[in-house]
């Protein structure tokens, strides 16, 4: 009954999404007050219904209700509770339901918090989101229904991919989807603005917090995904330029560009048409990612079930959304009036520079992802566009971005003096020289490592200088600086943190790429090997039974002269229901880097195949990602995003009255 209630709620959500895609446009066109008030209600109703159906499906998972086909195929009674819950989205149908839930959540949030938006704009935004929700609800109900029932349910399910039975990957999809789908808000604002024929600083101010929220979630989602790949897949890599990873990276690049161009729209009333374009592109990339993963065009860890009808359905949705929005763009964008003018060397100029390069980077990733697919479709030839292509194209594009990132925030709006700005960066230039020399002295290279470390320190110190200037650190008494720091808009702290985060990520990538030491060997218990100054000893082996797996756990003692030894516990597990082996790496992270051990199988001589890595600086990458997320959150909490929402007059009036002297 709970299951069927969930199923009905999902169908009713489709009905509400249909209402949501028609009534708001009608309301906005006719300026009908009552209909304008219905518009947000349709979005809230859609969200509540999708939430009911999501809860119902989760309930079916938690109670192991195998009369639901989706539960039967993806769950098992012996799974720990947490993976019964995360199992809801560790499969095609459930993950699409999560996708829609998040889309509906954004639609409802815009409706609930959009009281300060012009009602017609709000209605049109809600309407566009309704159209997207309708398309995807139709998709899920007709091709991927998670509520399909089984009439003679077996007493146990078929289990879940053990690679996905991991806390990191469990929360990765919700974050990633919050990011992907979050761009639907910016997209809807863009489409609504095109329909209204109006983009102004106020519009940019409404779009930015949503874009920023989506960006924060997407950054966190990508970070979690790469972290999971690093410790779970067991070969120490963290990014493979896998098409599915690229699918999340492209909207991130476009979203980052949008975040910056929206600043220009807000502050300077310029770059309007371009920002609209980026908003459309960012969400189109999200849809493209969904298509690539769900259509079976790709095979990867992420492509759960693939089915041609689903692919065709999503391709049609993709073409309608992307094609329709670009057609609208081509028709309406020329009518948008440009605003403030600016010189090439200015804050705006720097942001345009950033935008152009980020867009080129996104285009390169798109090319590298789609070219092999197109080639295979047309000629049947299979090629792999791998790391070399991306390294060769990506690094030259991102280097100027990072150099400019330190300078841009120091430039004033409209027109600026580049040399004055660079002059403020004297300390940064000095730090680069010192760091490069120290790096060379400590490691002797390689050249790209010196280059990468130099870039990282440049950006790090540059971002700090800009922030220090704002609070007049060391130029005024410390007390004054602290007061200024408190008064500084939170967005300024956010900018600094996000840019510093990028610097830390660059350092982490450089360090781990340049100085990772790896060694594969067969060891008997008690034998040891030496890597990068560490002694790795396979000290013990034991076998134990987990809740739904059997495991062999090694104890690896890692020691270095003068330091206390560190114990690592790499495991090899076999999940009994799915009959699939997984490796659980033993990792010890510290400020300077990770030591990483993987236990393999027994070789012919009865020894154990082991792989050990020493990866300097690699945790910096995820720490940097975290700092970026914090920066985004800090910026999001800026009070500027909450103003422009004057308190409702009828609510404030009693308070105002009571402030008057009594008569």
């Amino acid at each position, binding site marked *: *009954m709970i*299951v*069927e*209630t969930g*199923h*009905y*709620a999902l*169908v009713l959500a*489709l*009905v*509400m999404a*249909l*209402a949501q895609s028609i*009534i708001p446009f*009608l309301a906005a066109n006719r*300026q*009908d*007050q*009552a*209909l304008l*008030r*219905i518009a947000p*209600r*349709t979005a809230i*109703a859609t969200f*509540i*219904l999708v939430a*009911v159906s999501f809860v119902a499906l989760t309930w079916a998972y938690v*109670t*192991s*209700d*195998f*009369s639901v086909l989706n539960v039967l195929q993806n769950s098992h*009674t012996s799974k720990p509770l947490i993976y019964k819950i995360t199992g809801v989205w560790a499969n095609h149908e459930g993950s699409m339901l999560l996708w829609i839930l998040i889309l509906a959540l954004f639609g409802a949030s815009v409706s609930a918090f959009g*009281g*300060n*938006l*012009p*009602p017609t704009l709000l209605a049109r935004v809600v309407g566009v989101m309704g159209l997207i929700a309708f398309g995807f609800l139709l998709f899920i109900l007709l091709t991927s229904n998670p*509520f399909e*029932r089984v009439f003679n*349910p077996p*007493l146990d399910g078929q289990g879940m991919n053990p690679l996905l039975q991991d806390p990191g990957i469990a929360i990765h999809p919700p974050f990633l989807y919050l990011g992907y789908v979050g761009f639907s808000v910016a997209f809807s604002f863009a489409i609504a603005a095109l329909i209204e024929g*109006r983009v*102004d*600083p*106020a519009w940019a*101010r409404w779009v930015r917090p949503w874009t920023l929220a989506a960006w924060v979630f997407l950054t966190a989602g990508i970070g979690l995904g790469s972290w999971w790949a690093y410790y779970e897949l067991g070969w120490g890599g963290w990014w493979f330029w896998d098409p599915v990873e690229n699918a999340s990276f492209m909207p991130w690049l476009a979203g980052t560009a949008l975040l910056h161009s929206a600043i220009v729209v807000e502050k300077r*009333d310029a770059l309007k048409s371009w920002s609209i374009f980026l908003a459309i592109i960012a969400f189109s990339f999200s849809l493209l990612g969904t298509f690539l993963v769900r259509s079976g065009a790709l095979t990867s860890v992420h492509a759960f079930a693939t089915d041609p009808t689903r692919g065709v359905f999503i391709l049609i949705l993709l073409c309608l959304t992307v094609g329709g929005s670009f057609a609208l763009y081509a028709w309406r964008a020329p009518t948008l009036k440009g605003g403030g003018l600016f010189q090439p060397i200015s804050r705006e100029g720097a942001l345009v520079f950033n935008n152009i390069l980020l867009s080129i980077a996104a285009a390169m990733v798109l090319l590298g992802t789609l070219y092999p697919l197109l080639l295979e479709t047309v000629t049947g030839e299979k090629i792999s566009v791998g790391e070399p292509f991306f390294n060769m194209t990506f690094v030259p594009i991102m280097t100027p971005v990072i150099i400019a990132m330190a300078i841009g925030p120091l430039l*004033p*709006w409209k027109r600026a003096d580049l040399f004055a700005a660079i002059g403020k960066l004297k300390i940064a230039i000095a730090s680069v020289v010192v760091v490069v020399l120290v790096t060379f002295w400590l490691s002797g290279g390689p050249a790209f490592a010196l280059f990468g470390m130099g870039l990282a320190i440049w950006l790090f110190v540059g971002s700090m200088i800009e922030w220090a200037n*704002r609070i007049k650190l060391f130029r005024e008494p410390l007390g004054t600086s602290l007061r200024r720091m408190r008064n500084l*808009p939170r967005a300024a702290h956010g900018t600094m943190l996000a840019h510093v985060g990028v610097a830390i990520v660059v350092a982490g990538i450089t360090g781990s790429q340049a100085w990772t030491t790896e060694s594969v060997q067969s060891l008997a218990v008690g034998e040891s090997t030496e890597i990068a100054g560490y002694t790795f000893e396979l000290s013990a082996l034991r076998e134990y039974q987990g809740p739904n797996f059997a495991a062999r756990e090694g104890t690896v003692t890692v020691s270095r002269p003068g330091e206390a030894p560190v114990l690592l516990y790499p495991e090899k597990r076999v999940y009994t229901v799915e009959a699939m082996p997984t490796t659980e790496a033993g990792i010890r992270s510290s400020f300077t880097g990770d030591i990483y051990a993987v236990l393999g199988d027994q070789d012919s001589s009865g020894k154990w195949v082991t792989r050990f890595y020493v990866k300097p600086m690699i945790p910096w990458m995820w720490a940097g990602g975290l700092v970026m997320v914090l920066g985004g959150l800090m910026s999001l909490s800026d009070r500027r995003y909450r*103003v*422009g*929402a*004057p308190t*409702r*007059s*009828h609510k404030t009036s009693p308070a105002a009255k009571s402030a008057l002297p009594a008569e």
Partner: protein
Amino acid sequence: MTIWIIITAVTLLVAGYVLWPLRHPHRAAGTPDNGNNTDDDAVPDELTRDLAVYRDQLDEIGRDIERGVLSGEQATAARIEVQRRILATDQRIQDRAGKTKPGGAAIVRPIVAGFVAISILAGLGLYLDLGSPQTPDRPIVSRADEIAAIRASQQQDQSRQGALNRAVADLSNRLIENPDDLEGWELLGNSLMALGRPEDAQTAFLETIRLSDRSGDYLAMYAESVIRSNTGQITPAAYSALQEAADTTSRDPRIPYYLGMYEAQNGDGAAAVERWIVLVNNAPADANWLPMVLGRIDEVARVEGIDLTGRITLAPSAARGPSEEDMKAAAEMTPEERAAMIEDMVGRLADRLAENPDDPDGWVRLMQAYMVTNRPEQARTAYQDARTALAGQPDILERLDDIARDMGVPAG
């Protein structure tokens, strides 16, 4: 029932919530709500909203001067720019105010309400198509009895197997002393088959063949044990036994079934399907092997692209003879009452066959009933009627003749 209450409640709640703002049909479109309305819809007008943004921008220019990012001259320029935007906003709002066209709400609102209602009905239809409203939830904790039943039946299987093993041991000992016991060998063979030891069963069935002077039934059993030992492959030994059995009078269904399998395994699926169709069309409706053979026919026919429409005419299962109640009742009757009941049943069967004569199984049962009640003349009449009724189906006639001969129905 509960599900319908939930569906109704959810639907009404949602529709009510969404359409709530339509409850004042008299309020015209385009008229903003008056200020003293405590409704949830008093929103600040557009100018106020935009001005708040611009005021904040002016504040920021102040902060920029303080920071030293902007010079006084630049700040003045920036202020003028923001002020120009404020004027533009004001102008735009006034322009639009002139264009707003009120009216028409009286038509549009009912249309919207009707549209929502129709969509909800369509949604209900879609749910009825996709959903299974009557299927209850089956959480695993509520299925303890099923789990217990499976455990119990596993235990039962185990104890049955234990009993079978003991029986096999006893039987083997007896047969060592008395090797000419045909029934003993048959029982041993069947027990070994039930225990999943077809290789051992082969030996027992070879003994039955020897003792029965190569009876078709035993040849079929032997063939089956050979086939099961070879994971379903019809080996030459099994095939020759089957062929020999087919030439006997035996009507064991295993013979056509496995011969068909042989044909299917050797690329002649069409012949196999033909053979099996004859088998099932002549099968008693309650034969436990019927579903399996029907499954095979379906499977092979699909591979071979054979159209089965109208080919399979199973004996109607309603004509399965006396029901369980009838049997129970019969057990408690006096001989006279029992005779009357049988007479009644036979009469009903005869009446039905008169109406619907295309029922070979029914005819066979009628003939059998007459023979059992010692009325050979009536059996002969029934036999002749059956031959007339089934004249168009030569294979069935052939089998009918066989059966009649076996029963001892007087011919002609």
